[in-house]
């Protein structure tokens, strides 16, 4: 079932009672989620991604715009008639019911012709439990289970009624780091097995990139960019998106373009064919640095962090406009010599992005210009 959002907007009255301003949580959303895909709604907290999810679930009514499931306009439908499965950040498992009763709960709500026989219900519950591999925990209560197990139960409860769309709100944020890795693989697998169109909300870009077919990056209620994770990473549309994706984050320099060359400080670090003269932000991905004794980019070495196969070279630079130090990820065998004060790099052109100094929009040059 594909999901289409058309001009979807949600305004909330301001929390500050004295002012009449409205908060625009979701501003003019337009996109289509293809059938059977896993979509990650990604953005910093407060960007409206949970609101967007709840507009799809029907728990919130939009101020304007429409929501389609397939060809059906479901905008005015209450959540119970939409056929969505929803997994909450808090899991929202009923603490007084056992795992079996929790999973059974949605099925017992079905009325009329949709009502299943007892055996059919039992079968569906068992299938759902098998899908998330909790068959041996059926008589436990949620309080007696680990966070990861509760998460699985919550997913089972959401898929047991065979929803047309599965929605997950920050499904991993209450898990510890190891479980998070494991559970996100699990979500990917369950989604593939069931083929249910799935939307999940997260503020963790790594999580979104690793399992989504497509990511939607949001900021302040506005969609910034939509695309396959790798495409968005390789070709960000503005400074925000470039900064939001990637660990360690992209390095940002206060730079300028002169005669189709990018200058960071006094050094011309890269050719920028087709770019106009003026002040720009230059973003360089950490993996865009190549150690080069004659390279054009010089920085003060402050440390080397060992990451195993690679090392992270930590440097200072006067034009650094990012939040932290400049970081370059390079292969361990190329690590700078002991006692070195400075390091020199040349830059990979496809790992360097230019952004307008005022609008922070992408300035395309060279091979990127085609798009």
């Amino acid at each position, binding site marked *: 079932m594909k999901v289409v959002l058309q001009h979807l907007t949600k305004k909330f009255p301001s929390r500050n009672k004295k002012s009449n301003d409205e908060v625009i949580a979701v501003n003019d959303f337009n996109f289509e989620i293809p059938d059977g895909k896993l979509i990650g709604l990604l953005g910093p907290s407060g960007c409206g991604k949970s609101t967007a999810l709840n507009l799809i679930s029907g728990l919130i009514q939009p101020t304007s715009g429409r929501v389609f499931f397939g060809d*059906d306009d479901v*905008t*005015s*439908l*209450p959540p119970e*008639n939409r056929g969505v499965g929803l997994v909450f950040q808090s899991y929202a498992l009923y603490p007084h019911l056992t795992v079996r009763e929790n999973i059974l709960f949605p099925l017992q709500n079905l009325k009329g012709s949709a009502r299943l026989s007892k055996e059919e219900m039992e079968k569906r519950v068992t299938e759902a439990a098998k899908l998330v591999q909790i068959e041996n925990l059926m008589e436990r209560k949620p309080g007696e289970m680990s966070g990861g197990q509760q998460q699985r139960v919550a997913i089972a409860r959401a898929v047991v009624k065979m929803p047309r769309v599965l929605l997950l709100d920050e499904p991993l944020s209450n898990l510890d780091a190891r479980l998070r890795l494991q559970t996100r693989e699990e979500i990917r697998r369950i989604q593939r097995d069931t083929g249910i169109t799935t939307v999940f909300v997260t503020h963790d870009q790594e999580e979104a990139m690793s399992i989504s077919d497509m990511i939607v990056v949001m900021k302040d209620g506005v969609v910034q960019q939509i695309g396959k994770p790798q495409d968005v990473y390789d070709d960000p549309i503005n400074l925000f998106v470039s900064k939001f994706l990637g660990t360690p984050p992209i390095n940002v320099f206060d730079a300028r373009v002169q005669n189709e060359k990018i200058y960071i400080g006094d050094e011309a670090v890269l050719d920028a064919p087709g770019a106009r003269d003026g002040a720009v932000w230059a973003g360089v991905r950490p993996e865009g640095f190549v150690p080069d004794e004659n390279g054009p980019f010089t920085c003060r070495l402050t440390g080397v962090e060992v990451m195993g196969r690679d090392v992270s070279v930590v440097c200072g630079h006067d034009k650094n406009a990012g939040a932290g130090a400049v970081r370059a990820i390079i292969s361990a065998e190329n690590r700078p010599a002991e006692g070195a004060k400075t390091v020199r790099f040349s830059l990979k052109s496809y790992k360097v992005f230019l952004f307008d100094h005022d609008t922070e929009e992408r300035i395309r040059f060279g091979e990127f210009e085609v798009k």
Partner: protein
Amino acid sequence: MTNDFDRIGRASRARKAAVRAVTYALLTFWALMVLFPYYWMLLTSVKSYSAYNGEYVPTFFTLAPTFQNYVSAFSEVPLARYFLNSLIFTIVTTGLMMAVIIPAAFAFARLEFRGKNLVFSLFLALMMIPNELVIITNYQTITGWGLRNSFPGLILPSVTSVFYIYLLRENFAQIPDELYSAAKVDGTSDFKYLTRVMMPICKPTIITIVILKVIECWNSYVWPRLVTDDPAYFLVSNGIQEIRENGFGRENIPAMMAAVVVISVPLIALFLAFRNKVMSGVSRGGIKG
């Protein structure tokens, strides 16, 4: 298909609106049930004696309000006396209680001494002892000490509340130990630490306890009834009962209502001023009765 969906959506919204209407109707009904006695008491208090007694069928409003009843309430029965007694009783009892429970809560929360845990368990056990069980002996004790019809007799047995010691101790105990260590390093005495650090931090709880105790004192009836039979020492509750049975002559109901309004106003005003404090205090463990 789309029309169908619109219909379902409309039906669901209509259902919600209907539920909402019924909810408001129910809530308003109970609100009226609660407010009506207050309205009636105000209304009756401004009806003149003759007008009230002339109504065989009670009327729901009056066109000729009078304040004569309030004058009568203060001149024909010693309402001012009852009022003053209650005021003295409430202030002294509450003040004494705070002076007793704050050091006790401090000792339990902060000080280390032998036997503390045992004594604290005994205190907790005392929380379950209802007043009705101990009031008999207290009556005998106060009578034996010759304190009937006196303020000490009224006040002394009403001073302590194990529950408030417990409530305050819990609050004191939440203050991080680091603060105490820091104060010790700076050479602050325990008493100074209590008054300068702990009490200001726990001010909300202290205010809550004061308000709850004031309500309790203002409305107390049973104990004052037992130890006073001289109207000079009646509190408002006993005063109302006295007015009902012997004041004004039994039929002057408007004047009685004026007296009732006068004694009800202070607490209602206190409540409206400290609405949130009173309600959160009560939900944290105030039990009426």
